[in-house]
């Protein structure tokens, strides 16, 4: 049984169908990446899983239990934490207070203290800035804080939305290095949504490609990296000459 099993979900923004029957699986201990262009519905998938949006159809099962349409605050309690797009820190709270809010549902003071030390170990800069309001941190530091805050709930799985958004290539590399460490060292499974396909294919074990609300391709990242379509559209490895036209033809083939 997969840790997370999403089956045929359909999600709407008002009358607009953003997710058109998506199914995906994350096995225990895996990093799974969802690739796709702007507006493909990547963020919507994560929001549907974490309960901020409700699917009209389909099921989301975490550890074998159906969780679709549950309130987001309950879903965190099941061990499924969301690192939202654009960081979304609490700007006027200090870094430490932000982290403690991540542990809001926990009562075990010892475990919380241990996890606090652990995230300070991953991101020493957060320890140095523990008492600063988090609104004063740089974008990269805020991203580190957002990841750490999610880890403070001691999740079995992390949903990560564009962790590289707005970061320098160097910082992106550092963050992805730590994402991999978190996965290996703490056994946290990760569902990663990324526009930076290079990085995502580098760290993930398995990948899905999303276009206009549908999954159009799924495979191990090893094999995805070698597919001509992926190389052309997501890794930019062929010349851009007739890309528009060829992309259009390909999309037709996929449907």
């Amino acid at each position, binding site marked *: 049984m997969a840790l997370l099993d999403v089956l045929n979900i359909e999600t709407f923004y008002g009358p607009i169908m953003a997710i058109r029957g998506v199914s995906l699986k994350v096995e225990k201990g895996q990093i799974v990446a969802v690739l796709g262009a702007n507006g493909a519905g990547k963020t919507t998938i994560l929001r549907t899983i*974490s309960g*901020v949006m409700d699917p009209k159809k389909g099921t989301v099962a975490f550890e074998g239990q159906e969780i679709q349409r549950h*309130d*987001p*605050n*309950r879903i*965190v*309690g099941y061990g499924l*934490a*969301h690192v*939202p797009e*654009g960081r*979304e*820190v*609490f*700007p*006027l*709270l200090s870094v430490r*207070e*932000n982290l*403690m*809010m*991540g542990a*809001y*549902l926990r009562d075990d003071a010892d475990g919380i203290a241990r996890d606090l030390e652990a995230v300070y170990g991953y991101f020493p800069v957060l320890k140095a800035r523990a008492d600063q309001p988090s*609104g004063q941190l740089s*974008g990269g530091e*805020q991203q580190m804080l957002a990841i750490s*805050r*999610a880890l403070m*709930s001691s999740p079995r799985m992390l949903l990560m939305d564009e962790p590289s958004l*707005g970061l320098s290539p160097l910082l992106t590399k550092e963050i992805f290095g730590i994402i991999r460490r978190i996965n290996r060292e703490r056994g946290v499974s990760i569902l990663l949504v990324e526009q930076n396909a290079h990085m995502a294919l580098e760290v993930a074990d398995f990948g899905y490609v999303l276009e206009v609300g549908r999954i159009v391709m799924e495979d191990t990242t090893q094999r995805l990296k070698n597919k001509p379509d992926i190389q052309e559209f997501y890794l930019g490895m062929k010349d851009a000459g007739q890309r528009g036209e060829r992309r259009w033809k390909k999309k037709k083939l996929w449907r």
Partner: protein
Amino acid sequence: MVEFVQLTVNGIAIGCIYALVALGFVLIYKATETVNFAQGDLMMLGAFIAYSCIALWGLPYLVGILIAVAVLAAVGTGLDRIVLRPVVGQPTFAIVMLTIGIGTMFRAGASMTPGWGTETYSFATPYSGSTLRFGTVVIAAEHMTIILATIGLCAGLFAFFRFTKLGVAMQASSQNQLAAYYMGIPVKTMFSLIWGISAGVAAVAGILMAPISLVDINMGFIGLKAFPAAVLGGFGSIPGAIVGGLIIGVIEALAGFYLPAGFKDTAAYIVLLVVLFVRPHGLFGQMARKKV
């Protein structure tokens, strides 16, 4: 000089009342981005309940206060749960109208309640009539109680929001609702609790004010003075609300004595205008800064 100090102290006492009502405005505004125009009427309700307990049923003063604050906290929480939660997402204007309507209903309801009505009442406090003397300055115990109680209440609220997990979670919910959901914080419950706290603070303001201005159904119109106080401090800033209230209280007291009649009630608004010209976001306003 003595009279200046005397007036200032009286002004501070009244200012504390404005500050407490303004605090209620700001708490709710920060959390839910709506303005609760029923704040003054919640205060009136608190004063009337205290009056019933103390003057009509003969309960001890402190017990009466506790009951009034508890009832109002429950009323505030209930208002959010029953009346405001269903209109979340509607235009702000609709919600503001709703709170004005609620305030009017409270006033009408109070005037129809047996034993309350449209009369003006007073109730005895343990300290009624006594005065404190500092050199040549004489301070009525009523004024002193207001100042001390306001300091105590503000310190308590500060400690609550700063040092308790629940308080920090309330701050978090008002700073970033979506992220608070992601943390597992029950945001809706937090908002209801904040309404409860605001209404409780309003009740305290009403009870403190009762000995100096008497209890009647229109005492809630003090909200019209507290609102500029909140704006003066920069709507959305809690220290701002308190400082704004004090400034308006003191200016009003001084203007009422040194300036021609009529300035007492307009002075506050003149100061407000000047401050808004110079600092459009108020004295303590936090300019919304959001990094993308």
